[in-house]
C-alpha cells in the first residue's frame, strides 16, 4: 500500500513539458530543497494530467502540477474534497498542429480526420473536443466522423511522423517539435482562440489532507514556486538550457535549442490564477460529459487555510 | 447381550424430487462377537443400512442402538471397509494404514508399532512404502482391512469388500477373514451379494426383502470353521437363501 504521507517528506509530480518549467527549474536549481530544509522531496514525472490526479487520489503524491481540466475533473469527482488549488504556474503553451501537406485550414476540414491529444480529460483533450463540438463535429466513439486518439506525447510524435494522424492538439515542446522536425504546420496557438488571448495551462494543486496537515510545508513550497517563476522570467535563456538538461536526463533525448526557444516564447510563467478560465474549462468538461450529469460547483477550489491564502494572488 | 440393535429403521431418498423409500423398517440384533452377513437384491438398501450403522447417514425413522445408546454420529468404534477399499491414492500403504491414528493424534513411534503389527498380520510389511496403485486388488483390500483393524473398532462394517476380486484371491481372503475374526473377536457386519460368501463367513445370514426393504429371515449357519467355498454342507444353506432371494430379485427387476 502507498507509503503514509508524513511530515518528513513531500511527494510531487509534474510533466516533462516546457510549461512545467516552474517545478523543473525549482528542482534543478534547488529552490525547493533550500526552502524545505529537512523535509525530503520525492519528485516523479508523469505522462498526463489524469495520471497526476490518479497519483494524488491514490495517496502516492501530495502535490501536482496539472492543467485546469484534470484539476476540475479531480475536484468534482472527489466531491470537492480531494484536491485544492495552491497557486498558478503557467499560462498558454499548447498548439493545434496539422500535417503541412494536409488540406486542413478551417474547422470543417476536420471531418473524417484523425486527431491526437494527450489522454482523455487532459486540458488539450478538453480544448480539442470543445473546439470540435463548437464547430459541429462529433468524435467517432459518439458516432461521429472524427477519430480522436488519446495517447502520450511521445507516441503522438512517432505516429505524426509516420503520418498516422492528420493533426494533434499538443503542449510544448511537442507542438514545436512536430512543426520543426516532423513536417507539421501550426494552425493556431490555443491562446489565440481564448477570449483574453491567454488561458491557464499549469496549476499547482495539493491533496487536501496533506495541505491541511502541513500548512507550513505548503507555505514554503509556494514560496519556492514563486522564486522559480521569477527566476525563469528573469533568466529566460538559462531557463531554456536548464530545461534541455532536465529533458536529456529524463528521456535520454537531446532537444534542439531552437525548439525549446520557440516553445518558451509562447508561454507565460505566472502564479496568478485566472478563475474565469478555470470555470470555462469546467463548463466545457461538463458539456463533454466528463463531470457526470448531476451538475457541479467550483465554490471551494482553493486551499482555505488562512496562512496559505496570503501567498495566493 | 445385544451389541447393536436396529429398531424400525426407515430411510427415504430424494429421486428427482420424488421420495423413494429405501428401508421400510429394519429390525434385528447383533450380538457381541457376532459375524453377521447381509444379503438382498441390488438396491434394497444394504449399503444404506451400513452407513446408518456407521453414523454416516441418519435414518428418517427408528434408531440403531450401540450398547443400548442410540447412534448419533460416526466414530472410530464402528469402522467401515468399502467395496473398492477407498484407500487414499496420495498416501503410501503405511500412511493409509496409520491415517486414523494420525487423526487421533497418536505420536509417530507408537503409530509405527501399531501399523507394523497389522501390516505383518496382513502380510504387507514389504509393501509399507508402496503407493496403492502399485498393489494388486487383493493386496489393496488387505490394506483396507488393516486400516480398519488399526482403529481397534468394536464393530467392523464391511460393504462388499471382496466384490472386485478374482475368484482365487477372494477364496484366500475368505479364509483369512475367518482367521482375523477368530483372532480379534470383533463384531462384524458384512454385506455381500454372493450367497456362497455369506454362508462361508457368517454366523448368521440376514436376508433383506426388496425395496422398501425389511428383514425377510435370519438364518443361523452352524458349521465348524475354517469353512471353504467348496464345502458341500454349506449348499443346503445356500439353496435356502437362494429360494428366499429369488422372488425379491424378481420383484426388483420388475420395478425398474
Amino acid at each position: 500500500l502507498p507509503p503514509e504521507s508524513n511530515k518528513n517528506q513531500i511527494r510531487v509530480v509534474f510533466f516533462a513539458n516546457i510549461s512545467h518549467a516552474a517545478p523543473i527549474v525549482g528542482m534543478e536549481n534547488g529552490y525547493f530543497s533550500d526552502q524545505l530544509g529537512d523535509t525530503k522531496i520525492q519528485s516523479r514525472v508523469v505522462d498526463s494530467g489524469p495520471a497526476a490526479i490518479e497519483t494524488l487520489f491514490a495517496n502516492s503524491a501530495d502535490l501536482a502540477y496539472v492543467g485546469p481540466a484534470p484539476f476540475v475533473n479531480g475536484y468534482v469527482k472527489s466531491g470537492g474534497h480531494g484536491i485544492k488549488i495552491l497557486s498558478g504556474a503557467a499560462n498558454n503553451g499548447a498548439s493545434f498542429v496539422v500535417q503541412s501537406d494536409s488540406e486542413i485550414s478551417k474547422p470543417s476540414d476536420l471531418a473524417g480526420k484523425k486527431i491526437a491529444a494527450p489522454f482523455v480529460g487532459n486540458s488539450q483533450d478538453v480544448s480539442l473536443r470543445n473546439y470540435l463540438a463548437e464547430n459541429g463535429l462529433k468524435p467517432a466513439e459518439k458516432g461521429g466522423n472524427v477519430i480522436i486518439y488519446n495517447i502520450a506525447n511521445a507516441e503522438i510524435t512517432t505516429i505524426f511522423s509516420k503520418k498516422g494522424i492528420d493533426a494533434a492538439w499538443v503542449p510544448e515542446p511537442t507542438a514545436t517539435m512536430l512543426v520543426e522536425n516532423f513536417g507539421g504546420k501550426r494552425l493556431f496557438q490555443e491562446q489565440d482562440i481564448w477570449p483574453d488571448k491567454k488561458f491557464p495551462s499549469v496549476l499547482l494543486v495539493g491533496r487536501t489532507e496533506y495541505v491541511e496537515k502541513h500548512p507550513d510545508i505548503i507555505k514554503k513550497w509556494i514560496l519556492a514556486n514563486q522564486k522559480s517563476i521569477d527566476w525563469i522570467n528573469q533568466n529566460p535563456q538559462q531557463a531554456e538550457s536548464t530545461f534541455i538538461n532536465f529533458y536529456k536526463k529524463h528521456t535520454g533525448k537531446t532537444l534542439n535549442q531552437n525548439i525549446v526557444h520557440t516553445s518558451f516564447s509562447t508561454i507565460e510563467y505566472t502564479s496568478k490564477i485566472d478563475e474565469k478560465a478555470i470555470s470555462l474549462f469546467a463548463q466545457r468538461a461538463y458539456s463533454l460529459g466528463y463531470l457526470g450529469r448531476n451538475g457541479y460547483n467550483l465554490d471551494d477550489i482553493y486551499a482555505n487555510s488562512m496562512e496559505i491564502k496570503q501567498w495566493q494572488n | 447381550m445385544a451389541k447393536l440393535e436396529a429398531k424400525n429403521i426407515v430411510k427415504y431418498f430424494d429421486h428427482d424430487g420424488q421420495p423413494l423409500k429405501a428401508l421400510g423398517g429394519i429390525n434385528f440384533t447383533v450380538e457381541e462377537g457376532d459375524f453377521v452377513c447381509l444379503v438382498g437384491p441390488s438396491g434394497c438398501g444394504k449399503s444404506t443400512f451400513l452407513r446408518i450403522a456407521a453414523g454416516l447417514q441418519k435414518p428418517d425413522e427408528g434408531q440403531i442402538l450401540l450398547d443400548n445408546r442410540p447412534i448419533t454420529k460416526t466414530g472410530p468404534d464402528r469402522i467401515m471397509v468399502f467395496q473398492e477399499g477407498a484407500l487414499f491414492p496420495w498416501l503410501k500403504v503405511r500412511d493409509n494404514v496409520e491415517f486414523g491414528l494420525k487423526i487421533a493424534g497418536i505420536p509417530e513411534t507408537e503409530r509405527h508399532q501399531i501399523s507394523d503389527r497389522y501390516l505383518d498380520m496382513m502380510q504387507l510389511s514389504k509393501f509399507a512404502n508402496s503407493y496403492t496403485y502399485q498393489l494388486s486388488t487383493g493386496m489393496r483390500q488387505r490394506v483396507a482391512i488393516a486400516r480398519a483393524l488399526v482403529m481397534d473398532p468394536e464393530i467392523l462394517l464391511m460393504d462388499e469388500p471382496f466384490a472386485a476380486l478374482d475368484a482365487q484371491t477372494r477364496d484366500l481372503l475368505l479364509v483369512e477373514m475367518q482367521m482375523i475374526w477368530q483372532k480379534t473377536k470383533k463384531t462384524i457386519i458384512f454385506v455381500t451379494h454372493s450367497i456362497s460368501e455369506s454362508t462361508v463367513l457368517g454366523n448368521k445370514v440376514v436376508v433383506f426383502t426388496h425395496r422398501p426393504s425389511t428383514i425377510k429371515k435370519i438364518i443361523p449357519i452352524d458349521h465348524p470353521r475354517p469353512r471353504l467355498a467348496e464345502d458341500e454342507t454349506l449348499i443346503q444353506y445356500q439353496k435356502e437363501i437362494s429360494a428366499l432371494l429369488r422372488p425379491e430379485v424378481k420383484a426388483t427387476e420388475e420395478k425398474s
Partner: protein
Amino acid sequence: MKVKSLAKKTAFYLAIIVVWQGLYSANIWPPSIFPSPYNVGQTLWYGAIDGSLWLGIGTSLWRLAAGFAIAAFGGIALGIFMARVQTVNETIGSIILGLQSIPSVAWAPLAIIWFGLTDAGIIFVTVAGALFAVTINTYTGVKSINPDYIAAAQNMGAKGEQLITKVLIPAAFPYLITGFKQGWAFGWRGVVGAELLFSFLGLGFLLNIGRQLSDVSQVLAMMLVIMIIGIVIDGLIFKRLEDKVMARWGLR
C-alpha cells in the same frame, strides 16, 4: 429444486445490490472510489442513449470477429501442417508453444509500432492471442485421428484438399472446438487489452476513459458489459456448438 435454486440466485443478486447500496450509503469510501449501483446503471443508461455504448460494443465485437476468423483459419492450417509434416512440427511447433506463453497484451506495443493506431493493430493482437491456442488444439486433434479414418478415406480416393476438408477437419472437430473456445477467450482478452493500450475506440477504450477521468462508475459499467459479452459468447455460441458436436459424435 430448480425453482428453489433460481429463487436463491435472485435473492443473492438482490442482496448484492442491497449490500452494495448500503456500503455506498454508509459513506465508508468516497463516491468517487465507490459508486452506487444506481450510478453504474445511470452510466450504462446514458451510454445506451447517446449510442456510445453500442458503438463500443460493436467495434470490439467486430475486431474480435475479424481477429478470431483469421486465427481460426490460420490456426487450423498451421495445426494441420504441423500434424502432417514431422519437420514442420519439430521446428515451427516448438516456437508455437513458446509464443503461446506470451500474454496477448504484450503484443500490443509491437502492434502499435508496426501497425500504428489502427484496427489492424488491434486485430493483430487478437490474432496473436487466439492463433496459437487454435493451432495447438488442431495439432493435437489431427494427431489423435484414428489412422484408419485417414487410410480409409485415401483408399476411397480422397487426397489433398478433399482429405483435409472432408476428413481431417471433421475428424478433429471436437478438438477444434476446444481450440476455438480457448482461442476466443484469449482473443477477447487481446481485444480488450489492446483497446486499453491503443485507446482507440471499443470497450477497452471506454474503460480507459473511465480510468482517466477517475470515473469508477464508467469503469464498473464497462467491466459489467465485458463480462456479460463473455458469458453470452461462451454460453450461446461455444457451449452450443460443443453440445451439438458432442451429440453428433455420440459422446453425450
